[in-house]
């Protein structure tokens, strides 16, 4: 009988079979067979893996360190910016294909891809800070290397991302004054200062001039609509626009 004859070999076969069963690879440094020569991930690969897994904290940490160590490798900047944007809660995956044209305003379209103060509560300030860092990261790439017509894919990506993140930052900043703990609350607009209005307009202006495309056009339309609002100051115009556009 074959089973009796081959008993010890079947035992070996079964051992070989089930040693690595499950989800681990023999050569994985963390979960593989301890005595095998494992293949360690490079920091760049770790960052990519963290991004794929949605672990934005780790991705930001690794990429920020890499950028600090080697500031002239600009290919990493758009990745770091995307990681900051992801950490802030921006739905980048859907926002890049969103239609910013049509009848909807920038406030409405962008509003569907970003978190609100109502959703995040006290964490909203950190989210806003992360979005600001994503903009700063991209602005740190020399202007001559940011071009939508560049053959370097990172350069055209940087331009598109800069448009989206500046628009998102402007809208997120404005939402600070239109959303309370219970939801939409336009009474908070009275707390907006001239400095706040300047930050919002600068962000929207940056989005309007960063590149061509529907997001930039939408930002230009938004700026024109803000200027057309009644009011003596930018604060009043913004407050009026935010209510009209919604």
């Amino acid at each position, binding site marked *: 009988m*074959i089973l009796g*004859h*081959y008993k010890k*070999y*079947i035992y*070996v*076969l079964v051992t*070989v*079979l089930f040693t*690595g*069963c*499950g989800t681990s*690879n*023999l*050569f*994985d440094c963390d979960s*593989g067979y301890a005595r095998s*020569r*494992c*293949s*360690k*991930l490079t920091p760049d*690969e770790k960052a*990519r*893996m963290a*991004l*794929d897994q*949605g672990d934005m904290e780790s991705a930001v940490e690794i990429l920020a360190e890499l950028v600090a160590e080697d500031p002239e490798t600009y*290919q990493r900047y*758009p*990745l*770091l*910016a*995307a*990681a900051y944007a*992801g950490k802030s809660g921006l739905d*980048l*995956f859907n926002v*890049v*294909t969103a239609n910013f044209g049509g009848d909807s305003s920038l406030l409405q379209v962008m509003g569907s891809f970003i978190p609100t103060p109502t959703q995040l509560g006290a964490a909203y300030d950190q989210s806003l800070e992360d979005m600001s860092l994503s903009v700063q990261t991209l602005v740190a790439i020399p202007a001559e290397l940011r071009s939508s017509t560049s053959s370097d*894919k*990172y350069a*055209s*990506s*940087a331009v*598109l*991302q800069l448009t989206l993140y500046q628009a998102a930052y402007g809208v997120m900043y404005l939402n600070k004054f239109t959303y309370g703990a219970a939801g939409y609350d336009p009474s908070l607009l009275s707390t907006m200062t001239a400095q706040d209005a300047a930050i919002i307009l600068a962000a929207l202006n940056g989005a309007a001039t960063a590149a061509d495309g529907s997001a930039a056009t939408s930002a230009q339309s938004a700026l024109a609509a803000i200027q057309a609002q009644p009011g003596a100051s930018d604060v009043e115009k913004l407050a009026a626009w935010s209510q009209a556009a919604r």
Partner: protein
Amino acid sequence: MIIRFFLNLRPYLLPACALVWRVTIWIFCGIGWQSVALAKGSAPLYEDPFDVASGGASLTRASQAGMIFSNPALIPYGTGFHRWLGNETSLIVGKDSVDFAKNLSSGGGNSAASGSSTAQFVDTVVKTPLHAGVLNSFSYINRLFGFSVFNRGEFDIAAKKYGDTGLPSLRFRSESYQGVGLSAASLMLTNMISVGATAKFIYAGEPDVEIDLTDQQAISDLQSPAGLRSLVSMNTGYGYDLGFVFFRQGQNSDYRLAIKVDDFGGTRLNGSADLKELKQMYHVGLGYTYHNSVDSLHFSADYRDVGGASGDEVFKRLRLGAKLLIRHHIGIGAGYYDGWPSYGLELDAWLVRLTAAYYKRELGVKPGLDPRGVYVLGFAMGI
């Protein structure tokens, strides 16, 4: 075990050992190491599903349909003059891609996709990468020579929320090889050594395209068979493989040492596709078989691409496997393929051979970066 094997050698066999050693040295040192960058991975052009189920360690023992590309020196080993004449077809489907593959194979797809179906497609591939393919071979093998006409096509479509530039992207990868292999082999020195060679004509392409998510037309094209075909351009070329097997047979135990040179001197490919050369690679395999007259248990370990010409990491080059063949009709295979466990069954019912296998391919450069679970169902008919 290996030391004991050499200690037990008869004195008159020592010249044979010396010959093997000289050939080994010649192969490894005389021809020179390949240090040029990767053009193709270390895997063979064509692998039989049951061999893949057994970890892909096929240098010392391979299924008939895959023998010509696994190691031509295996051809003389077996019983009878005529070995195999038949056709083998296998379907490869990613664990998560069954529905999509069904749609494509029925000629479906959406060549004029609307925005919403494109979004749906992208959404699908973000969650579950699409992986599918087909293997086909028609081959004839006897104890002296054999030939195989083969086709291997495999593609993978995956979406990343954060692509190489930070923006979402779709990545289309494909491996497409077709061609003809003609092998001959001969036993030498009281059948202890087999030397074989394969001459092959190849039609090959390995497109790897990353598409920005903002490029809706390109994404739409990926959803139709015609669109997929347009991405695959092919090059052609002639190449040669050499194989050696050092075989010692006992009453119940056989030992095998195999050495193979893939694409001897490098196989140049002509055409517009990016794949311009298949690098010369050396592989070494060890096998041990415990058997009686009707059953056998074979353990094998292959170390592929010893010189590292492919650029593959060790986890892709080391293959471990076991095959239990019962009454010549039932096979159970298991092993490690790309470092991941693999399993499979084979049922050989005279004219018909059925194979089912599961394995994981690592598409990334490191373990766990981009693995794909793959099912293979094979159907072979022949005598």
